[in-house]
């Protein structure tokens, strides 16, 4: 697996896009892998009864996918220091999550990358990820 070093990173560089199909399997398997058994993440009937159109991603998974998106690009040498996520519209099963991002700065604690996760309804997550590289 390739890995970036600090010298490789240019402020303003775009991260390659990543599109994830939000299949029911993905929504359910990630909810369970994050130990989140809230019914709206695995039971369509209950999700609909509560006004949702379908089951949807849980927040722990959104955090995990944002982390994965950045480390897919940096490679294994990166150390993630901080992930700030502003949550927007729900990411429903059957939709598609498109992640995009760019390196927006470098500060004492590390590089900062802005990440957006979009679904058909709009922005699901707007994130700032802080990481260091060797």
């Amino acid at each position, binding site marked *: *697996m390739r890995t970036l070093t600090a010298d490789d990173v240019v402020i303003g560089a775009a991260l390659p896009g990543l599109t*994830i199909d939000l299949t029911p399997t*993905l929504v359910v*398997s*990630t909810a*369970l*892998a*994050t*130990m*989140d*058994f809230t019914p709206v993440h695995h039971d369509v009937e209950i999700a*609909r*009864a*509560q*006004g949702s*159109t379908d089951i949807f991603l849980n*927040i*722990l*998974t*959104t*955090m*995990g*996918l*944002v*982390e*994965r998106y950045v*480390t*897919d690009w940096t*490679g*294994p*040498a990166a*150390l*993630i*220091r*901080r*992930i*700030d*996520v*502003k*949550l927007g519209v729900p990411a429903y099963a059957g939709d598609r999550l498109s992640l995009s991002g760019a390196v927006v700065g470098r500060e004492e604690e590390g590089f900062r990358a802005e990440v957006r996760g979009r679904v058909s309804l709009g922005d699901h997550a707007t994130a700032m990820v802080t990481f260091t590289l060797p």
Partner: protein
Amino acid sequence: MTGATPGATPGPDPADDELRELAAKQAALGEVRGTPAADPVNAPMIRHWLDAMGDANPAYLDRGVAPPAMAQVWTMQGVRPRGKVSTPVDDVLAALEARGYTGVVATNCEQTYHRYARLGERLTPATRFAGLAGPKRTALGEGYFATWNVTWYADGDEPVAEMMFRVLKFRPRTRTGTAPAGRREPYPLRPAVNGDTAFFWEGVSRGELRVQSCADCGRLRHPPGPLCPHCRSADRSYVTASGEGTVYSYVVHHHPPVPGRRTPFVVAVVELPEGVRIVGNVVDCPPEDVRVGLPVRVTYRAMDDDLVLPQWTPREPR
């Protein structure tokens, strides 16, 4: 939470001050330690998580550490929470719920990782209520933003990760607002709303549990009726109950099928501290966990696009 308050008080809503006081009290509790993780940081759960996320980063298992975004995973409650320790946040959310702010949506999740947790470490969460802001008008309806912080400590007292979490608790908009596309299947059973009971259902639509009272002798009665059984006065009023109660008796309905319901479901007689008993479903709880004396709190559930029913959900005992 206060006891019964007069229902017909005009003027500014004292509930806002009560919420602010409760929020300040909970914030003053400072950091409250929770139950340590059921399992230490371990490779099988990490592998499972990486697989579900589609994360091929080999750094974690190679170096014997957990993905930092798993911080919260280690201390999740599981399918059947055992001996859940309450946090300073619970009472604030319950008070909002009782005042009709029944909708919830998370708005911010910010995590700082001091270091990656290592295999074998058992994390312990500690929660601090940070603050309540509102009431504010939002796209979803009027609501309050509640913010809290969780810190995960490793075996000693070393903080490994921290999180700031914020939710909006809102009063779901009524039908006139922007209705989501597609109406839900109408719930086939409707309550009987008449001159005797209209106040109760108006209360439900505002997230208040109202109990009829005699305007002359002041005694409470439920279900509502035209005459006071004690003094025979026909003058009536109501009080707003605290929304808490205990299961006085219950049945688990298995058969016959009931239109609009999935069996089994629980029908309980709930005794209120105000002194009356009220019939309702117990939800969010497997029927086998319901028992006489179970502490419950009212919750308002949308049965379809128009009908909201008060139901009962387990709460922490006082």
